[in-house]
């Protein structure tokens, strides 16, 4: 399996030894490069995801989706971005200017922050701490603040209602989201993302196989909670179009709205990515314990595995979003506090017992 750390170590040594730059300069250059990579990947993925959503939903609905801009409509999203970039941005009278201005950036920061945890390939994880999963959930919750401030700062009644909904919903679902991740941590024994992926390398080593029943429950709960956390249908209450026009971003135009729009799609990808990493082995190919098949699987690059699995989950999320009606706020909270949370707690206990007794696939 190709290890991307060869490239990174080579580049590091290129800067430090061949070019003789000091610690500070070489780290600075590396950071800048990585930053640029993250932002570029972020933007590209957003465009891919938006295009994917349009096409996928169109095909679900017996339509064609974008067809006229470029062959098969592939340039549609570029046109949208270009337009949105030079759309007028204005301030709402009597809005809280500072909060109004800061909110989209908070949402974007949370989304880029979690995005940089993605393990793209072997040795290509950008942020890889020993408390990686923990930090990831911490950063993702900044998004709540963004949503809340956007709603509050806009001086719009719909937005306020939406902000309250968003805050309540996102804080609630964070619970079961974290509990599911902890369930996985119990099995893998590490919070480091690269460690979690490595722990899934054995035959049928993906966590959903390895941890069988509790892991599958955790996986499904994670997807539901993650969908709610990303404010995607059927949990898109904060921006429930038919109730609150556009929810917390009703008053945003141009790129302010664009940031929310991007973040929404990337959050969906991040949820799919984290689910892939934790439950479906990240970039790890499927191994079945037969040497020939395993080595064939290893030939497929890790990034293909990662993106393949992540996009499969994205597709599932899209499928759900376009066919399910929206829940009501009390039903959403009931689902979380009465069903998902207790379920994840029991599940956590179950997983602990299974790990303690060694009843998982080794």
């Amino acid at each position, binding site marked *: 399996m190709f290890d991307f750390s060869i490239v990174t170590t080579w580049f590091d040594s290129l800067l430090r030894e061949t070019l003789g730059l000091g610690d500070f300069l070489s780290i600075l250059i590396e950071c800048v490069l990585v930053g640029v990579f993250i932002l570029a990947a972020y933007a590209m993925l957003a465009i891919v995801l938006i295009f994917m959503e*349009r096409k996928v939903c*169109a095909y679900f*609905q*017996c*339509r*064609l*989706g*974008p*067809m*006229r*801009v470029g062959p098969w*409509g592939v*340039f*549609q999203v*570029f*046109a*949208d*971005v*270009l*337009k*949105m*970039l*030079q*759309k*007028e*941005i*204005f301030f709402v009278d009597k809005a809280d200017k500072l909060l109004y201005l800061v909110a989209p950036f908070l949402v974007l920061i949370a989304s880029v922050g979690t995005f940089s945890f993605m393990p793209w390939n072997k040795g290509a994880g950008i942020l890889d701490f020993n408390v990686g999963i923990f930090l990831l959930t911490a950063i993702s919750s900044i998004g709540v603040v963004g949503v809340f401030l956007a709603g509050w700062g806009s001086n719009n009644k719909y937005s306020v209602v939406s902000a309250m909904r968003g805050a309540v919903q996102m804080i609630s679902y964070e619970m079961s989201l974290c509990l599911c991740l902890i369930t996985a941590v119990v099995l893998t024994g590490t919070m480091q993302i690269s460690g979690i992926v490595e722990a899934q390398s054995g035959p049928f080593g993906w966590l959903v196989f390895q941890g069988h029943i509790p892991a599958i429950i955790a996986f499904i709960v994670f997807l539901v909670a993650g969908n709610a956390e990303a404010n995607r249908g059927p949990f898109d209450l904060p921006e429930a*179009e038919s109730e609150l*026009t*556009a929810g917390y*971003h*009703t*008053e*945003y*135009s*141009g790129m302010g*709205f664009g940031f929310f729009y991007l973040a929404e799609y990337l959050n969906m990808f991040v949820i799919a990515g984290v689910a892939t990493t934790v439950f479906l082995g990240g970039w790890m190919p499927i191994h079945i314990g037969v040497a020939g098949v395993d080595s064939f699987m290893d030939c497929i690059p890790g990034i293909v595995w990662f993106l393949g699995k992540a996009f499969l989950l994205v597709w599932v999320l899209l499928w759900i979003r376009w066919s399910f009606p929206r829940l009501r706020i009390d039903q959403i909270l009931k689902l979380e506090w009465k069903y998902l949370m207790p379920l994840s707690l029991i599940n956590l206990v179950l997983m602990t017992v299974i790990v303690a007794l060694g009843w998982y696939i080794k």
Partner: protein
Amino acid sequence: MEVRKPHIKSIPYAEFKDNESLEKIVNELHEGGVDVFVGSLDQAINWGRSNSLWSLTFATSCCGIEFMAVGCARYDFARFGFEVTRNSPRQADLIMCAGTITHKMAPVLKRLYDEMAEPKYVVAVGGCAISGGPFKGSYHVVKGIEEIIPVDVFVPGCPPRPEAILYGMMQLQRKVKIEKFFGGRNRKEKKPVVVTNVPEDFNK
């Protein structure tokens, strides 16, 4: 630099109606003169704008149902990039005024138009929005929304067929494609100056 003739996929330029107004606008642009760099930038921006016209979901009566039909499986305006309909006027590019505007609705329409972010366009769909239509004689109907907000494209019909709405949207695309972003807007034609207080002995 020449302003290119707006091109719409699979429909030749000559088959569109009312090319004269477009040419008039183009000629006005030529008189101003644009350099190559700014002109190319304009073209890129216009490409983006014209292919991503998000409309405000604004429907007052019958035409709104036809507007819905345009969005659905058979006609599917997503093909052209008009797919996203926004409910918030801040995020919409055009207001497709589908239906009668009454006196009670007139301030609301004006306000919605004012709330939209530039660049914004208006398409008047159906007889009522154009002139009051069959309700012209009523005491409570605005005789054409052009009295309230500037209209870019008129789509006649009562209600217009979905094909007509699509054609109207293409006409709007053509209009957007010859817009000048750097250096003022040209899409609204100037109103003639009307002098009303002419002294009685003016002609003598």
